[in-house]
């Protein structure tokens, strides 16, 4: 309110022309010691940058982009614009204009006229001006360097023989390694003759995506297909997995492709999407479970079960004395050997069981749902993803029947889902806690059941609150899929390492990893943009 009035007055006020330069210098530039130091440093930095600009030689660039050795029109324009002397002149002009603008603007208290924009957006005070200029120069050099490495000085031929000849003379990147290995990087060892199945999967996804955009963005006519679309998405996961995996046949169009042969970006995206997709609902359930107030086990049952356990503990009576080796630190030898008589062993068992039961009953009021959720979440959050993956890979088979051979990829995905679900649950719980009591009460008062209140009132608000956190988690998970290489999977990054190890492309790590980084970045960045869009869209009329 007040600001609007002030701005109005400011606009209406007659500009004052009291040119009090010394007063202005005192007030704005040399107001405090650190401001003075900062200003001086910035001035020095600018002078140094301009000086180095004068002395700079244009970076040696290859013009091989065009076959005859002639630079493209845009290429030569950028080269000219960023060559030392011209750049310096541009910077000098900007600097002078900026300085003049700042002094001129400071000479008046208010700044009417078209230059207002310049002042506000670029030359916002002397520090703003100097910082903008310094950063501007840095950015120009950075862009120039990146462009000359990635494009203007780069070599795009994919045929290893000619690249071998050109390698030493090429100043920029040798992108041939990517082009020549694009299949490996994209889908790994997936058999070439059935790659159409991947294209078909992609087609399904793109088709659904296109329909979804239409159904959710252009109003009523397609609204009716929203529900079928949601089911379509769910079904598509299974259709696509079937397409990718194939049948048991050894040959033919639907031949089975073992997940060992999946690799590259295909593997990354499969793990990420299934991990993200499945951990979301599981996480929500865990969060609700952790807040559950269900008295899952009535007191009577608890004691009944407790007695049964005691009976079992006592009944599980060993025939001979039991020797326990308890590891110790700072003790030589580092174990403490205890020999328990059958009686005391059984008593110990019973005691531990009763203790656990008592803890569950006393601290969690017999709420098994809550107990399970808390134990699961805290156990998983206490270990790194790598450990979970190792456990999924090596420990899980020990607990399962011997002849049950679970697919390596499936094990890894289960590990990723469980890991991510635990974090998801904590985020969702944060959202649930932020919903005021009044919302629960109002939902109950109008007669909604507990499940309905959750589904219609509480979760929609809670999830909306935690969208940024959830998307952050998903982005993290997407990038963490790189860890699966540790358990022998060839995801995009691991495939990149393999590609670099080929004799004809040896030593081209920079190109490969830059490419992989770009792919990860594009996807992570799109997710973050999509989340912002979603937030905006859902934020309508919020509070």
């Amino acid at each position, binding site marked *: 309110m007040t600001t609007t009035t002030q701005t109005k007055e400011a606009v209406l006020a007659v500009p004052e022309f009291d040119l009090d330069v010394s007063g202005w210098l005192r007030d704005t530039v040399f107001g405090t010691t650190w401001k003075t130091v900062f200003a001086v440093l910035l001035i020095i930095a600018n002078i140094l940058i301009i000086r180095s600009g004068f002395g700079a030689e244009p970076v040696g660039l290859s013009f091989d982009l065009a076959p005859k050795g002639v630079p493209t029109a845009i290429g030569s324009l950028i080269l000219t614009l960023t060559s030392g002397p011209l750049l310096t002149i541009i910077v000098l002009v900007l600097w002078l204009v900026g300085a003049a603008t700042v002094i001129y603007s400071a000479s008046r208290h208010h700044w009417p006229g078209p230059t207002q924009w310049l002042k506000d957006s670029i030359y916002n005070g002397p520090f703003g001006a100097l910082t903008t200029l310094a950063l501007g120069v840095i950015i120009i050099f950075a862009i120039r360097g990146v462009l000359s490495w990635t494009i203007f000085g780069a070599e795009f031929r994919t045929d290893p023989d000619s690249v071998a000849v050109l390698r030493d003379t090429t100043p920029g990147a040798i992108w041939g390694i990517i082009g020549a290995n694009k299949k490996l990087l994209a889908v790994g060892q997936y058999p070439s003759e059935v790659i159409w199945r991947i294209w078909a999967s992609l087609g399904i996804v793109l088709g659904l995506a296109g329909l979804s955009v239409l159904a959710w963005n252009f109003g009523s006519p397609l609204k009716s297909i929203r529900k079928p679309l949601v089911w379509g998405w769910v079904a598509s996961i299974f259709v696509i997995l079937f397409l990718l995996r194939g049948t048991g046949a050894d040959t033919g169009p639907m031949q089975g492709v073992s997940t060992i042969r999946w690799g590259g970006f295909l593997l990354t995206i499969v793990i990420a999407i299934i991990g993200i997709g499945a951990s979301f609902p599981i996480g929500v359930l865990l969060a609700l479970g952790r807040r559950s107030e269900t008295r899952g086990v009535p007191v009577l049952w608890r004691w009944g079960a407790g007695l049964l356990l005691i009976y079992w503990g006592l009944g599980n009576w060993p025939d001979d004395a039991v020797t326990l080796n308890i590891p110790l630190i700072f003790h030589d030898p580092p174990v403490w050997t205890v020999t328990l008589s059958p009686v005391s062993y059984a008593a110990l068992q019973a005691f531990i069981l009763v203790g656990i039961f008592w803890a569950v009953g006393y601290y969690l009021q017999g709420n098994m749902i809550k107990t399970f959720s808390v134990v699961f979440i805290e156990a998983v959050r206490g270990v790194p993803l790598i450990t979970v993956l190792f456990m999924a890979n090596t420990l899980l088979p020990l607990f399962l029947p011997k002849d049950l051979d679970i697919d390596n990829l499936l094990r890894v995905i289960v590990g990723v889902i469980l890991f991510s679900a635990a974090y998801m649950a904590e985020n969702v719980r944060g959202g649930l806690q932020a919903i005021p009591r*009044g919302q629960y009460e109002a939902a109950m*008062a*109008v007669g*909604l059941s507990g499940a309905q209140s959750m589904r219609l009132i509480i979760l929609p608000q809670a999830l909306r609150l935690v969208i940024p956190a959830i998307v952050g988690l998903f982005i993290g998970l997407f990038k963490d899929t790189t860890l699966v290489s540790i358990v022998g999977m060839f995801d995009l990054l691991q495939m990149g390492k393999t590609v670099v190890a080929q004799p004809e492309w040896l030593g081209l790590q920079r190109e490969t990893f830059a490419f992989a980084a770009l792919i990860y970045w594009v996807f992570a960045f799109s997710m973050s943009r999509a989340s912002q869009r979603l937030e905006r869209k859902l934020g309508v009329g*919020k*509070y």
Partner: protein
Amino acid sequence: MNELGNDIIICNDVHKWFGEFHVLQGITTTVKEGEVVVIIGPSGSGKSTWIRTLNRLEEHQKGQIIVDGTELNNDLRNIQEIRREVGMVFQQFNLFPHLTVLQNVTLAPIHVRRWSREKAEEIGMQQLERVKIPEQAYKYPGQLSGGQQQRVAIARALAMQPKIMLFDEPTSALDPEMIKEVLDAMQELAESGMTIMAVTHEMGFARGVANRVIFFDQGNIVEEKPPNEFFDNPEEERTKLFLSQILH
């Protein structure tokens, strides 16, 4: 005044404890169909707690509460049954911020009464007209003033076509200039024959609209009388003291 019907709310020696704290200390009273009861009393005396036991937002631990012929006990179906017939309006409105006004109003009819969307919207719009804000139907609660929000809350409760309406200090969170629009809506409701229990300190409303005023203190009913008698001729010392404090 309306013709009063059968007993619709019966409280019989209702007790409640918050841990050690004995918040409701044996309330016994009945409310008849079509009756308008105003409850006044000092802050912290348990008025909210009592009124919230009537639709089981709070559990009572001893005694008997019968609403519309159904006893409130741990049976979940009874509770759902009663909540369908009892509308409640809160001090803080408690509208659902992620839903439009009309969605707020039609949500329970659709999901609890299982009416079709068309029917729910028709009745919802009728209720919004009744509280004089049909033009706000497609806005979100956050875009409305306090008085408008409270009227939406009334319409939301009415859309379930309840037999009883409970109000817990519906005007205490409002700016003075908005109190009247909410009281007008409540008065119209009272005149239509709705059974109302309202905790409020709007003495004008109590005098003009109520059939009975209950003075509530320290977890129990101290005095209950028709408004004229209550204000002009209070018997209990505590009532006199309280009235002298709020009427200056």
